[in-house]
């Protein structure tokens, strides 16, 4: 978004996906941390250049959270 982005930005943005109507639920904090830690490990396999790792993490963590770990909201199921 802007220069305010940092590591925590990804977590919080992912959690708020439920209010953006992108997912129907978010997991408990501990569970999400565990799963997202694993996602970082997975990303290392895809991105062996460790120098790039922080950028991959910062830009991708919220997408990872949405795509891989959250139950996605069915299309057309909007409560508004």
């Amino acid at each position, binding site marked *: 978004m802007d220069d305010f982005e940092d590591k925590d930005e990804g977590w919080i943005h992912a959690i708020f996906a439920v*209010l953006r109507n992108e997912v129907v639920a978010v997991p408990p904090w501990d569970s999400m941390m565990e799963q997202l830690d694993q996602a970082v490990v997975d990303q290392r396999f895809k991105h062996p250049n460790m120098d790039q790792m922080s950028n991959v993490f910062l830009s991708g963590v919220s997408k990872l959270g949405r795509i891989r770990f959250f139950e996605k909201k069915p299309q057309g199921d909007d409560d508004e």
Partner: protein
Amino acid sequence: MTLPQTPDAELVVLVKLKNAQGKLAYGVLVDRHQPWVFRLLKNLLQTPDAEEVKQETFITAWLDIAKLLFNERFRGWVRGIAVRGAYRRYRRAELEKRNEGQVDLNPISSPLEDSLESDNAVRVVLERMDYVYREVLVLRYVEELSVSEIAETLGLGESATKMRLLRARELFKVHYVEVTRG
């Protein structure tokens, strides 16, 4: 091009005429923008008042449309009206509670089970937070505004906005861990 396909800025030009076509154009703008305005207000207020404040927002926008200097910025302008309206409603509700002796000095004591069962942990946490922190979190992570856009909406400087956002995130994390760990 029919009105529903017309960009905001062109619709605003029509609305400013305040004639029959302007009313039709405003109807299109309301249809286009009311879903996100309602979402914003619902997340800010966490009460059924959101619908009423939404109506007030669009009435104010209609009455004050001449004050919108840059027609292409209709969305941001309406957002500002909605955010200010939400804050006024929040303050009024707090005053009413205080007058009735119902101020909740310990919001953490509010019941959580029903909300958690419906996967509403995020909303529960927002309800626990001070309004100013809830407000900045909603603008950042639901409306996905930049720091400068938030600063403009709230009438704050960018440094003050960043500080408020950092504090809000810290508090949110503490409450979210607490809520989701039960």
